[in-house]
């Protein structure tokens, strides 16, 4: 129900109300009624035909780095060897 997918904005309608987003090679037109200040190239969370919020590239990088770090840092020595 709350499914939302990150997709990249490739074009914004002149009205500013709609945008074309792509996910992989798949393109779709979505409503921009719920977000402000998006530009082509931005990633947005796509939910039931609406862009629900922007996805922050920096935060995504940071989170991933934290995850990787957690695995490296905190794993038990035995498990780490197994890798």
């Amino acid at each position: 129900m709350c499914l939302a997918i990150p997709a990249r904005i490739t074009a914004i309608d002149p009205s500013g109300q709609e945008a074309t987003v792509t996910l992989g090679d798949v393109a779709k037109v979505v409503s921009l009624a719920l977000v402000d200040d998006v530009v082509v190239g931005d990633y947005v969370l796509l939910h039931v035909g609406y862009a629900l919020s922007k996805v922050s590239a920096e935060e995504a990088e940071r989170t991933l780095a934290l995850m990787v770090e957690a695995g490296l840092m905190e794993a038990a020595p035995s498990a780490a060897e197994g890798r």
Partner: protein
Amino acid sequence: MADAMDAGRRFSARLDLAGGVIEMSHGGGGRAMAQLIDELFCRHLDNPLLAQQNDQALFTPPPGRLVVSTDGHVIAPLFFPGGDIGSLAVHGTLNDVAMAGARPLYLAAGFILEEGFPLADLERIVASMAAAANAAGVPVVTGDTKVVERGKGDGCFITTTGIGVVPDGVEISGDRARPGDAILVSGTLGDHGVAILSQRESLGFETEIGSDSAALHGLVAAMVEAVPDIHCLRDPTRGGLATTLNELARQSGVGMQIREAAIPIHPAVAAACELLGLDALYVANEGKLVAICPAAQAERLLAAMRAHPLGAAAACIGEVVEDPHGFVQMETRFGGQRIVDWLAGDQLPRIC
């Protein structure tokens, strides 16, 4: 004028294939129906058996066991990237025949047309059917046409039946999967279903994916030659790979263990599935097959598949296991384990 007096050899005006539509009389058994059969069906599907114009086709089969299979085709839309209901009706049934390891011999086709259906669309469908049948080397030797009132049908339904001959020594059946057997697929999964969905205006997405609709009997012939002891073959159509594996597990009384990472899926199909909240394992295919064979033959079979254009992306995706519960289980790409269950409800309506 003597010509004009003929009882039935010619028709006063040709069918209006450009602007005409199907009327009730095209199914009424009278002259309008005879004309439709002559000027549209027989013209495109032309072959000696059909030309007999009897209500049945007569032929002498080659020696050996035969198989027969029937499939209704009710796809919407009728025309889609990579095919249409005409080519699909040929491929869909040829493949069911081929899944017995058989060489298809003949096709029969029954049309149910809706009043008001454009003759131009019907001709396009029949021409496509003829092209697919020709390419496959399997003629449509007999047929039938019915017309239903507007609002009682959906343009065009086609039920095709195929007959084929099974080579000696081939024993392929859904109940022959045995623990230890290898599970192979012939290529990427879900292409057909995604291609159809991309045509639904309400879904409003665009993709370059076309249907994989294809006749697989050539591939099957190559596979059977390489490994006569194939245990099971099935085309994962409605319900996709997941449904086919569950069917085979149920029929054979075994479980299956597959690896998500080994399953070939086109990136655009994966993307469309994410977008729609679908699972590609349940999405239909019309030009793919699942094969199960003894593990020792798997490499040989895979090589034979990959050597054929329709099996270039073939992969071994898992193995048959003993399981009194009959589960199809999958090691996820993520490293966990899950069931790949029967579909509850329908994931995608009217995709074949």
